[in-house]
C-alpha cells in the first residue's frame, strides 16, 4: 500500500494525530470509497482499484467484514475512517506468524498516520494472539514510502524476494520485513532489536 513522501519533512515537525482502530461496518462505505477507488493508494495492492460504490460494498462484504483482523483507522477522536490496517494469519500450521498490510486515503498521507496505525495494530495482535511470534510485511522494492512506514514502526529488513508477486499484471520484486514479539515467553527472554 502506498504512503506518500510529500511534505515528509514538514510532517516530522507536526504532531501525529491521535488515531483509533475499530472494526468496519458497511455504513463506512462512503469513507472506504475515498481510498479504495484511488489508484495512487491501490496501485500497490493485490486487489484491483474499485470503480463503483457497488464494487466497494462487495469488497467490504467479501473481504473486509469476514477478515480475521481488519480495522478502520480513525483520526480525531472517533472521526471517520481515513484508511485501513489488517493482519492476516499465515495459512496452515504456521499459527505463530501473520502478515500486516495498510492503506491510507491520499489526502491524509504525510502525517504519520500509517506508522501510528501499524504500531497500534502490531501491539494489539501480539496481545490478542498469544501464540503469535512473528509479524511480517512485504512492499514493492520501489515503494519506499511504505518501507519508511514499516521501518518507523519498528520492522526490520529481512530479504529482497525477486519476482515474488504479480501486481497489476507484472511480477514484482518485494522487500520482506519482520517484527518479532518483544517478549518471547517460551524462552523467558527479551528479543533485542537491532540483533
Amino acid at each position, binding site marked *: 500500500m502506498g504512503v506518500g513522501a510529500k511534505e515528509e519533512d514538514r510532517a516530522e515537525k507536526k504532531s501525529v494525530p491521535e488515531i483509533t482502530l475499530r472494526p468496519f461496518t458497511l455504513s463506512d462505505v462512503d469513507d472506504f470509497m475515498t481510498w479504495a477507488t484511488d489508484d495512487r493508494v491501490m496501485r500497490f495492492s493485490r486487489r484491483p482499484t474499485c470503480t463503483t460504490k457497488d464494487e466497494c460494498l462487495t469488497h467490504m462484504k467479501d473481504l473486509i467484514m469476514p477478515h480475521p483482523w481488519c480495522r478502520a483507522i480513525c483520526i480525531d477522536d472517533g472521526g471517520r475512517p481515513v484508511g485501513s490496517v489488517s493482519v492476516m494469519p499465515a495459512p496452515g500450521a*504456521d499459527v*505463530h506468524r501473520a502478515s500486516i498490510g495498510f492503506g491510507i486515503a491520499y489526502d491524509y498521507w504525510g502525517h504519520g498516520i500509517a506508522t501510528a496505525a501499524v504500531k497500534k495494530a502490531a501491539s494489539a495482535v501480539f496481545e490478542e494472539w498469544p501464540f503469535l511470534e*512473528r509479524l*511480517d510485511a512485504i512492499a514493492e522494492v520501489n515503494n519506499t514510502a511504505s518501507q519508511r512506514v514499516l521501518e518507523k514502526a519498528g520492522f526490520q529488513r*529481512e530479504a*529482497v524476494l525477486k*519476482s515474488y*508477486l*504479480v501486481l497489476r499484471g507484472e*511480477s514484482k520484486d518485494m522487500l520482506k520485513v519482520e517484527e518479532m514479539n518483544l517478549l518471547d515467553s517460551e524462552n523467558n527472554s527479551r528479543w533485542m532489536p537491532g540483533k
Partner: protein
Amino acid sequence: MAEEREITLRRFDLSDLDDYMVWASDHRVSAFCRWDTYTDKEDLRRYMRETVLPHPWFRAICLGGRPIGAVSVNLGAGCDRCKGELGYVLAAAHWGRGYGTAAAKMAVRSVFQEVEGLERVEALVDVDNKGSQRVLEKAGFVREGVLRKSMVLKGRTRDMVVFSFISADALVD
C-alpha cells in the same frame, strides 16, 4: 554433469509404494521435513493416492529407472502465480553423490518450460540443514536471506533460509 545422466524424473505410480517407503520411513530423511516418518504402508498409500498422484508437479527421482527420492514444485495461483516452491527428498543411501543437485536442476529446468507465467522457483531450508543449502547453491539458486521464525517444523519455530531461482537467471553448468 555426470549425475544428471544417471538421474531421470518421472511421475509416480502406486506401484512405487515400496520404493517410496524406503525414504518415507527414515527419520534421517524426515528430520527437516514437515511430514512425520511413515510407519504404516497404508498411510503412505493414501498419501500417494490423495496428494502425490493428483499433484500438479510431483516427480520421482529415479536411478536406473527406480525411485530413490522425490521432487515437487508447489505452484501458486492469482498474485502468486509467478512463483513455485521446490521441495525434495532423497533416500539416505544415495546422499552425497550429487543426485539432489541434479534433480533440483532438472526440476527447475522442466517446471519453467512446462508452467506458463512461472518466473520464480523458491525453496525454504532450515538454517541448520547445511546439506540442503549446498544442494541448492550448486544447483544455481541464489540465497536471498533468512526468514526468522518463519516455519513450524516438528513443533518448533525455525529460521529458514530462502533461496530462489529466477527464470531469467542462467542455469549453472
